């Protein structure tokens, strides 16, 4: 009997599909970059999101004095019907403009983990390493935590999803409407940066970095592709060729961009971040984003940055861990990068 392997067709296609906008060293760089930009924005549906944009009205809901910082909760609508809850953590002491670290959770229970608040079973253990915003403010940054679309407070109430797949329903809704959750999340980050002008006495809007783990790392990468005000991107446990990660291992629906493999791979999109510094952190034992895929993709990133004329502006930092936020390594990396940029904390 013929062996039935339901995965074989897509595996074969993934291997053989020619990416029509893949980087090659002989391309006319500026033309290619413009083509990648247009196609990427089309595929993620950014125009559909823009059509639904609305004025940014910041509403401060809470100010709490914490140990060494003030925590401000605010909300704004990034598009009609999309209210974005955020926390801004401002170091205590002199009121002055400081560099901003945007921190994003992945498929945790929500962004309350970033501010070190446990709301659900399991949060307590996770926040010992997952309190990204608290870590940032302790480094001396103003930290912005954004609840990502379809996560935490913003997860669907249409059904009761488990935390690992909480994004599925809203991802599918976005697709049917001709957009993607990735596009929506990119947009939310960009509009959150607009909203930061409300807090300009605290925030140096010329010095913004973004970091996060897993789904937060993914969006650290993509949001930087969209918004040039982000000057440094440090995605953790997220950057990898689609072929070896989301096409090869069961990942969340919020990672998918319909049709993208006809045009390019994740690494080709690094041209939309260059020349700005990109420090990719990866887990050497991360089975969700396997190291061989990460390393192969990173070779292309290096070639892209070389073509851009800034070969030293990209880095790959490999930890000995699996799919894991290594806070010391990440903040050391961030500090090294901001030193190069001349930012002072």
């Amino acid at each position, binding site marked *: 009997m013929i062996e039935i*392997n*339901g995965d074989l067709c897509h595996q074969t296609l993934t291997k053989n599909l020619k990416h029509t906008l893949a980087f090659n060293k002989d391309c006319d760089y500026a033309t290619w970059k413009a083509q990648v930009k247009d196609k990427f924005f089309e595929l993620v549906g950014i125009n559909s999101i823009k059509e639904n944009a609305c004025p940014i009205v910041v509403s401060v809901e809470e100010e709490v004095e914490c140990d060494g910082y003030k925590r401000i909760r605010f909300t704004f609508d990034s598009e009609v019907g999309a209210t974005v809850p955020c926390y801004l953590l401002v170091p205590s002491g002199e009121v002055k403009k400081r560099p901003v670290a945007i921190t994003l959770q992945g498929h945790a229970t929500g962004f309350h983990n970033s501010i070190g608040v446990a709301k659900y079973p399991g949060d307590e253990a996770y926040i010992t390493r997952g309190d990204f915003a608290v870590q940032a403010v302790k480094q001396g940054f103003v930290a912005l935590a954004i609840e990502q679309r379809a996560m935490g407070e*913003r997860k669907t109430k249409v059904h009761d999803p488990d935390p690992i797949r909480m994004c599925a329903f809203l991802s599918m809704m976005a697709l*049917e409407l*001709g957009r993607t959750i990735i596009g929506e999340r990119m947009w939310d980050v960009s509009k959150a940066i607009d909203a930061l002008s409300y807090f300009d006495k605290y925030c140096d809007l010329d010095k913004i970095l973004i970091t996060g783990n897993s789904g937060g790392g993914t969006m650290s990468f993509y949001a930087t592709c969209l918004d040039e005000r982000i000057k440094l991107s440090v995605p953790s446990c997220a950057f990898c060729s689609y072929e070896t990660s989301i096409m090869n291992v069961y990942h969340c629906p919020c990672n998918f961009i319909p049709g993208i493999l006809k045009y390019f791979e994740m690494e080709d999109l690094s041209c939309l971040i260059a020349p700005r510094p990109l420090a990719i952190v990866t887990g050497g034992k991360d089975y969700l984003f396997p190291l061989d895929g990460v390393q192969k993709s990173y070779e292309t990133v290096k070639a892209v940055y070389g073509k851009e004329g800034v070969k030293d502006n990209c880095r790959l930092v490999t930890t000995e861990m699996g799919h894991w936020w290594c806070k010391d390594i990440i903040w050391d990396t961030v500090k090294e990068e901001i030193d190069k940029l001349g930012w002072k904390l």
Partner: protein
Amino acid sequence: MKEINGDLSYKTLLKNQEKKLAFNDTVDYNTWKNQVKDKFYELIGIDSVIANACPLNPVIEEEIECDGYKRIRFVFESEVGSFVPCYLLVPNGDKKRPVVITLQGHTTGAHVSLGINKFEGDENYKDLDFAVQAVKNGFSALVIEQRAMGERATKVHDACHLRMCAFQAFTAFELGRTVLAERMWDVSKAIDALDTFKDVVDTDKICITGESGGGTMSFYAGLYDDRIKFAVPGYAFCSYETSIMAMYHCACNIIPGALRYFEMEDLACLMAPKPVAFVTGDRDSLFPLKGVEKSFATVEKIYKKAGAEGKCRLIHTDQPHHWDKIYGWKTIKEEAEKLGWEV
């Protein structure tokens, strides 16, 4: 504090989004139908599937004499790397019978159509042995294992059968196609493969039915391949707005961008003037009656515009999301009789 409702944005869009190719009474029908056809095929990515086509090379793997019919298992390759397991049930006797293509939805697989229990819990499926029912009603039956289901479920992870389609549905999107197009294509190629059996079944008389995910594909495959002479989709036809966009359905239902252009009912123009009879459960919470009836009202207008008034029907059953075999087969036989088929 402002109430955070993560669903509000898409619900607002859903309500407000203009569908550029929605049916209206004043359209130039043929022009509109062609626009719908082109856009639908583009959105589902059928070109990507066609580009990967290959010779079918059907192989007969098993022939078993059963009670009143012979069951033949055959496998063919619908596109590179995509092997399709099928069963053909041929009633005893010399008469070549019309063929009903029967499709399972999110059960454990096509074996359920044959009345075979393979997995724990299969014995609890009630009235889903579609192919055996077809034979008992005088038809031949073609059973196709749908993409991403049963034997064709992913092995990349251990998927429960209710969500077994998710991984392949999403990898299809990334590749610029949809599982929906792949399944349409598989049905069409299975009809090609039936040529091997043209001496024992009547390949000029083919219809299609199924329930839930099988009903969905009865609709889409029915409108794709004109060798299918009528379709009886069960427990699946409903506006996207009131079904897949209103509650958690499977990823294999999704067509990226569809709602910028049309609703499910608008696609009925690709079925017309072919007869279609939608069987619906009046208590079906997954495809709510209100949505079904509203969508069907548009189907009726489309059929009228196509000059095929009366060729579309909505059959109500007093059921939840569950195949009613009495009304199901009554409907199929009525449609067959209208076409002069002898069963």
